[in-house]
C-alpha cells in the first residue's frame, strides 16, 4: 500500500514535469495575443485555486474570503511601487508575508468557528476590508491605482510589448503552488490537515494540534494567494478594490478546485484548464451583447458539473487509470 502511494507520488511528479515543459513550449506555436492572455489567466487561476485548496480542500476550512489575501498582495505591490518606488519583487514578498501574518491573526479567533459560521466569517472579513479600501483615500479609494509604465524590464516586472514574460511567471507560480502542495501532501502537515478535515475531535484526541494545523494551512495558503495578487497587479497594471477584493473573486478562486476535485493535487489544475478558457470564451463570443447570455451558460455549467460530479472531474481520470491497471 505504502509503495503504491510512493509510486503514485513519483508518477505525479513526472506527469507534472512533462506538463510544465509542454506548457512552456506552447507559446512557440501560439502567437495570438488573445489566446496567450487566456493562457496567463488559466495558469494564474490554477495557482490561486491550488493555494485556496490547501486551506479549504486539504484542511477543510472553507474560505470564501480569499479575495482579501489576493487584494492585499495586489495593493502591497502597487502601493510600494507607486508611493515609494519599491520594486515589485519586494512588494510581492512583502504582500505575501503581510497576508500570512494577517491570515494567522484572523485565524486566531475564527478557527474556533465551525461550518457555516466560519464560511460567513471569512466572507464578512473580506467584505470589511473591501469597504475600508474603498474609503481609503491614500490608497486611491474606489478609483484604485494606476501602475505607471516605466519601460519593459524584469527588474520592474513590467512588460507592455509582450505577454510572454507574464506567461512564464504564471507558469512558474502554478508550478510552485503545485510543488508546495505535492510536498505538503506527504508531510506531517498534510496528514494532520486531512485528519482535521475528516474529524477534528478525533484528530485532537490522537495528538494532532488542530489549532496549529489550521494556522499553518492558513499562512501557506494566504502567502501564495497574495503572490498571485501581486502578479495580477503587474499583469493588468490597474487595480481597484472591487476588481481585486470583491466577493466574486473569492468564488472564482474556489471554483476550479471545486469543479476539478477539492482536496486533490490535480483538481485545481484540471478545473482551471477547463473553466477559465470557457469563461473567457463565453464572455467574448456571447457576452458581447451585454445581455447576460454568458452568465446563463456559465451558471448552467456550474450547476450541472457540481451535480453530476460531486467528487470533481479528476474522478474521471483516476477511475480510467484503475481500469487500465486491471
Amino acid at each position, binding site marked *: 500500500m505504502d509503495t503504491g502511494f510512493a509510486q503514485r507520488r513519483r508518477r505525479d511528479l513526472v506527469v507534472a514535469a512533462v506538463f510544465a515543459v509542454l506548457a512552456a513550449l506552447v507559446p512557440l506555436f501560439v502567437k495570438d495575443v488573445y489566446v496567450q492572455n487566456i493562457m496567463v489567466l488559466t495558469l494564474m487561476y490554477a495557482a490561486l485555486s491550488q493555494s485556496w485548496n490547501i486551506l479549504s480542500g486539504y484542511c477543510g476550512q*472553507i474560505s470564501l474570503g480569499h479575495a482579501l489575501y489576493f487584494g492585499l498582495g495586489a495593493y502591497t505591490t502597487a502601493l510600494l511601487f507607486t508611493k515609494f518606488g519599491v520594486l515589485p519583487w519586494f512588494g510581492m514578498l512583502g504582500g505575501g508575508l503581510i497576508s500570512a501574518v494577517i491570515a494567522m491573526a484572523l485565524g486566531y*479567533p475564527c478557527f*474556533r*468557528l*465551525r*461550518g*457555516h*459560521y466560519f464560511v*460567513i*466569517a471569512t*466572507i*464578512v*472579513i473580506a*467584505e*470589511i476590508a473591501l*469597504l*475600508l479600501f*474603498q*474609503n481609503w483615500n491614500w490608497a486611491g479609494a474606489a478609483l484604485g491605482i494606476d501602475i505607471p509604465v516605466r519601460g519593459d524590464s524584469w527588474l520592474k516586472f513590467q512588460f507592455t510589448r509582450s505577454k510572454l514574460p507574464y506567461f512564464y511567471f504564471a507558469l512558474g507560480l502554478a508550478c510552485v503552488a503545485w510543488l508546495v502542495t505535492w510536498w505538503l501532501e506527504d508531510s506531517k502537515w498534510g496528514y494532520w490537515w486531512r485528519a482535521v478535515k475528516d474529524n477534528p475531535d478525533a484528530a485532537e484526541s490522537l495528538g494532532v494540534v488542530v489549532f496549529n494545523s489550521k494556522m499553518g494551512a492558513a499562512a501557506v495558503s494566504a502567502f501564495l494567494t497574495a503572490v498571485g495578487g501581486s502578479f495580477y497587479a503587474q499583469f493588468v497594471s490597474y487595480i481597484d478594490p472591487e476588481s481585486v477584493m470583491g*466577493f466574486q473573486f473569492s*468564488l472564482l478562486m474556489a*471554483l476550479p478546485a*471545486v*469543479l476539478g476535485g*477539492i482536496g486533490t493535487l490535480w483538481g485545481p489544475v484540471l478545473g482551471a484548464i477547463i473553466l477559465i478558457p470557457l469563461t473567457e470564451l463565453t464572455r467574448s463570443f456571447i457576452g458581447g451583447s*451585454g*445581455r*447576460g*447570455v*454568458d*452568465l*446563463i*451558460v*456559465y*451558471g*448552467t*455549467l*456550474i*450547476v*450541472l458539473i*457540481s*451535480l453530476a460530479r*460531486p*467528487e*470533481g472531474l479528476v474522478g474521471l481520470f483516476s477511475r480510467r487509470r484503475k481500469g487500465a491497471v486491471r
Partner: protein
Amino acid sequence: MPVTAETIIQSLASGLLMGLLYGLIAAGLALIFGLMDVVNFAHGEFLMIAMYATFFLFAFFAVDPLLAAPLVAAALFVFGAVVYLLIVRFAVRAKANAGMVQIFSTFGLAIVMRGLAQFFFTPDYRSITHSWLGGKTVSISGIFLPVPQLAGALVSIAAFGALYFFINRTDFGRALEATREDAGAVALVGIDKNRVFALGWGLGAALVGLAGAIMAMFFYVYPDVGASFALIAYVTVALGGFGSVFGAFAGGIIVGLVEASTALILPPSLKSVGIYAVYLLVVFIRPRGLFGSI
C-alpha cells in the same frame, strides 16, 4: 446634520423598521437551513425575481404592490418547490463534498438567474413610481416613519406570527419539525421526505417573495439587487443562530439597529461595516450565534 437625541431616535426607529424587513428576507433562508442544513446561495436572486414580479404586475396590470404581495408569494412558493425538485434534491444526494455541492449548485443557479434577468429585463434600474404607500411618511410624536417600511415591518411581524402558528400548531408544521429532526425515521410513519422538503422550499421562497413585494415599493429593481441583500440575510441568520427561525427575527432587528447606529458614526458608505463587526463579535463570544442549536 448634528447628532441630537432626536436624530438618534429617528434613525433607530428607521433602523428598527428596516431590521424587521431584514428579518423577513432572512426568514426563508433560516427555515430552509433549519429543515435540511442547506444554505441557499441563490436566496438574493429569489428576492430579485420577487421584486421584478411586483414591478411588472404594477407596470402592466397596475396592480399595487400591496395587492401583488400575496400573488408574488404564491408564485415564489411554486418556484421554490421547483428549485428543490430540479436541483437541490440531487445536490443533497451527493456522496462526496456534500457541503460544496450545495454551495455551488445554488450559486450556479444564482448566476443563471442573474443572467436571465439581464437577458429579459436588461440591466436598467427600474422603480415603482406611484404606489399607494410609496413616498408617504407618518409622524408619530415628532418621529417621521416612511409608510412602505412601516407596512413592511407590520407584514414581517404578521409573517413571523403566522410562521410560529404554522410550525407549532399544524400537522404540516409537525411533519416539518419531525423531518428536521430525523429525515430517515419519518418515512416509517408515512411522511414523504421529498414532499416535506419541497413544501419547505416553497414556504421559504414564499416568505422572501413577500419581502420582495414590499421592497419593490421603495427600492430600485435591477438584476444584481439580490447580491447586496443576500449577504445581510446570511449574516442575519447566522447572528440569530442557524436552525432557529426566530433567531432570524431577532437577528434582523439587531442588524437593522446596528446599521442605523453605524450610519450615525461612520460615513454612509461604511454602514455595513458595523453589521459585519457585530456578527464577528457575537460569534467570537457565542460560536453558534445567539439562539443557534447547530
